[in-house]
């Protein structure tokens, strides 16, 4: 490959009008390119490992994530990635039910994994614990100087969820190698069930305990992308993705309260009184579109680097979102840097999102819609992330550590805020 690159560069140089003035630069470049390539082959393997801790306020979800990503060259034309992820999750998560002080519901645990109560009222969140193992393999083969194909496979297993996926991506460089076109396809099969097996009948009364078989879902993703070198210090990217999924999309643990607002005669304040509780129901298909654009740009004498991205997302559930992401890396020395991070996310609510089924006339049964969910993640929301990362080169590797704070605000959901802390330390070992 080094020879091919060198020959290509010589070809470009031959076409230059002012050969003499550029000869010294070109010679340095050829030597540098060959050395870099040779170095890449010698340094053909690296192991990136990381430990991440995610914790939400109010004794909600906490996750410890251990990751190991191994990347290596099998030959000058073949690169493989092996990614291993182990998540340990525990804590409490909102069920979708209202925080009621006067519940007539005798609640059976929604997850089969325990439950908790708030203020002595109904169960509006459940405790859970789970472990997830994820494995992903990727093999990239260079067909020739300008084209490569990547083949991927993935597996993810939890106590109540399994996912199997495969993907193929085709990359084509332009002749000047300033533009890369990408086309990709991925398919996955997910099996969803409760820890006690099966899935609840959608919109059935929780206490009736009507169970169906496990849920299955097939998903298909297509992507078209282009990345382009805009100038010597800037590269940009634009992707369009369309995804279609068919099958079980409902969360088998989430519920919706039938409730009425009741005035406390002592305090004069209104509080929810839960009358009944139903399992949620979501459509059995989903069509998603997203446009993603990103840019990396370096400036200044010290080489400050900015990464900025924007994504527009929309789907046929009525959800659309805007996501901005910005990082700014400032070198502290030749070996270390500091990098603040800011992310802004805003989404609209799903068409079928409800806070609850409000029923002020207990004697009249409510009319249930075709689909409904009180899952806060389907509500209108804004999420803001702020964080900072420090990185430094160590002997034979790279060390990074970061801390981030995430705050999500929800418009109507019973739990209208989630605050999370993220801590991550990573070390990438380069093998000579």
């Amino acid at each position, binding site marked *: 490959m080094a020879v091919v690159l060198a020959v290509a560069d010589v070809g470009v140089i031959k076409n230059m009008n002012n050969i003499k003035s550029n000869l010294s630069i070109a010679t340095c470049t050829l030597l540098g390119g060959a050395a870099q390539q040779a170095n890449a082959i010698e340094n053909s393997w690296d192991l990136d490992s990381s430990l991440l801790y995610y914790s939400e306020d109010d004794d909600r979800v906490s996750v410890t994530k251990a990751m190991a990503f191994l990347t290596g060259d099998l030959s000058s034309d073949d690169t493989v990635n092996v990614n291993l992820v182990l998540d340990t999750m525990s804590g409490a998560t909102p069920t979708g039910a209202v925080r009621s002080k006067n519940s007539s519901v005798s609640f059976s645990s929604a997850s089969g994994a325990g439950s908790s109560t708030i203020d002595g009222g109904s169960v509006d969140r459940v405790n*859970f614990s789970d472990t997830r193992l*994820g494995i*992903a393999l990727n093999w990239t083969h260079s067909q020739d100087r300008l084209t490569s194909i990547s083949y*991927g496979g993935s597996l993810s297993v939890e106590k109540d969820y399994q996912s199997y996926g495969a993907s193929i991506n085709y990359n084509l460089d332009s002749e000047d190698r300033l533009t890369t076109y990408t086309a990709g*396809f991925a398919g996955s099969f997910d099996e969803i069930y409760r820890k006690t097996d099966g899935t609840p009948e959608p919109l059935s009364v929780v206490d009736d305990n009507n169970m169906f078989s496990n849920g299955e879902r097939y998903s298909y993703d297509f992507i078209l992308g282009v990345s382009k070198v805009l100038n010597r210090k800037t590269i940009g990217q634009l992707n369009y*993705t369309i995804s279609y999924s068919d099958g079980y999309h409902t969360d088998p643990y989430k519920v919706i309260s039938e409730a009425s607002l009741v005035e406390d005669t002592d305090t004069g304040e209104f509080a929810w009184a839960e009358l009944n509780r139903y399992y949620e129901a979501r459509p059995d298909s989903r069509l998603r579109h997203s446009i993603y654009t990103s840019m990396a740009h370096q400036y200044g004498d010290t080489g400050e680097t900015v990464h900025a991205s924007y994504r*527009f997302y929309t789907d046929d559930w009525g959800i659309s979102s805007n996501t901005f992401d910005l990082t700014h890396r400032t070198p502290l020395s030749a070996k270390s840097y500091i990098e603040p991070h800011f992310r802004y996310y805003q989404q609209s609510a799903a068409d079928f999102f409800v806070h609850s089924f409000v029923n002020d006339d207990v004697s009249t049964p409510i009319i249930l819609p075709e689909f409904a969910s009180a899952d806060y993640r389907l509500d209108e929301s804004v999420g803001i992330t702020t964080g900072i990362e420090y990185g430094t080169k160590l002997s034979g590797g790279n060390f990074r550590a970061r801390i981030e704070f995430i705050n999500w605000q929800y418009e109507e959901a019973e739990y209208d805020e989630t605050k999370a802390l993220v801590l991550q330390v990573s070390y990438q070992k380069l093998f000579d």
Partner: protein
Amino acid sequence: MNRLLITLSISVGLTASLSGCSFYNAAGEAFTMENVEPWQRDILAQDDMQLDPDPMRTFADEHIYFSKEASTGGRGVGGGGCGCN
């Protein structure tokens, strides 16, 4: 209204950059489209100038946001799902 302003800003930015308009960055350097020869790609080859400079961090972030938000994807296709809470 908020979404409209955001979309407009992005559109103007993309259109201007693709049409070769000049901007000035924080260091006062002009930002213009230009052809880059192979021997001028030293900066572009740096680790922090890759479009995804830290795939492990990206992977972790995407898992967090996938678990807490209704939107997903954009960067690529493939990878495993999860029944996240």
